[in-house]
């Protein structure tokens, strides 16, 4: 099988193309930060206005699952990083293995997340559909849970996209249809994956940790 063509026609050389791809992804990540920013602002404002409701509501979240999921995502970042590094050295087997591990960890995260949603349903913590909160200020606790579902839901959508992308690249690398060593594909994919991780790194203390010490 011949080497797939790496250089697109609008570019002069591979260096330029790589730079463009990486810059493009970084800029996209900046817009992602602001996309989540709108929700986080809502979180911050209501937490500032109704701290009691916030702490009471956050204490009811499933901290074990949240912590385990954080660990899983951090580990997936390591395997993603390994994939990029293996790609630079042209080690196809290592790339596919690392990508496979990454996707598996991501799927594992989603599975736990789904179980957590199930528990939330069981505990009547789903705003609009099934919500009963006995502790202080149920109205604003409902806003907390609304934001919780919104934030983690949008994050889960991002992660699903990321897993799909990883699987596609994995397939292309395995079948030799991607010039992974020359193109920036792996790097760019890695950047997106790590962003999904970074978002979670911030969601974890915002959702699971408030009010634990009271």
């Amino acid at each position: 099988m011949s080497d797939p063509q790496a250089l697109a026609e609008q570019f002069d050389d591979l260096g330029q193309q790589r730079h463009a791809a990486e810059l493009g992804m970084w800029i996209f990540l900046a817009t992602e930060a602001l996309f989540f920013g709108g929700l986080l602002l809502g979180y911050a404002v209501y937490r500032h206005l109704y701290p009691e409701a916030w702490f009471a509501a956050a204490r009811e979240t499933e901290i074990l699952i949240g912590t385990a999921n954080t660990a899983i995502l951090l580990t997936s970042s390591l395997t993603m990083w390994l994939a990029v590094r293996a790609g630079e050295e042209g080690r196809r087997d290592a790339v596919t293995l690392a990508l496979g591990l990454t996707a598996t960890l991501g799927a594992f995260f989603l599975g736990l997340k789904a179980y957590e949603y199930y528990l939330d349903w069981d505990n009547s913590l789903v705003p609009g559909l099934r919500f009963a909160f006995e502790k202080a200020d149920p109205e604003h606790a409902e806003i907390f849970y609304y934001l919780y579902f919104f934030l983690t839901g949008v994050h889960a959508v991002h992660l699903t996209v990321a897993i799909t992308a990883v699987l596609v690249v994995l397939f292309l690398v395995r079948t030799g249809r991607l010039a992974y060593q020359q193109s920036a594909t792996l790097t760019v994919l890695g950047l997106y994956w790590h962003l999904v991780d970074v978002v979670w790194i911030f969601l974890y203390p915002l959702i699971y940790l408030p009010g634990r010490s009271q």
Partner: protein
Amino acid sequence: MRAIGAFHGLWWPGILVWVTLMALLGLTWGLAYVPMGVFNTVVSMGIGTLKALLVALFFMHLKESGPVLRLAACAGLVWLAVLFAFTFADYLSRGWGPG
């Protein structure tokens, strides 16, 4: 075991970063139960920022990237700060009375 073989020579320094990240996760989890008042929030967000910084610098290669990429990486955060700062300029000063 096979995995370790396949990644021969690739682990470092990623594994160090990963160990640090895990340690920080354990730390923030534990500290959340220690009553520190407002500092609970400060500490948990501080550790979160540290973790994100580690991921960005090492896993996302920002340490070796050129100035343009760093600028792009910072732009989102700076603008996020603008959004928060000016909105809270409103919320924090709503209750202020005259002079």
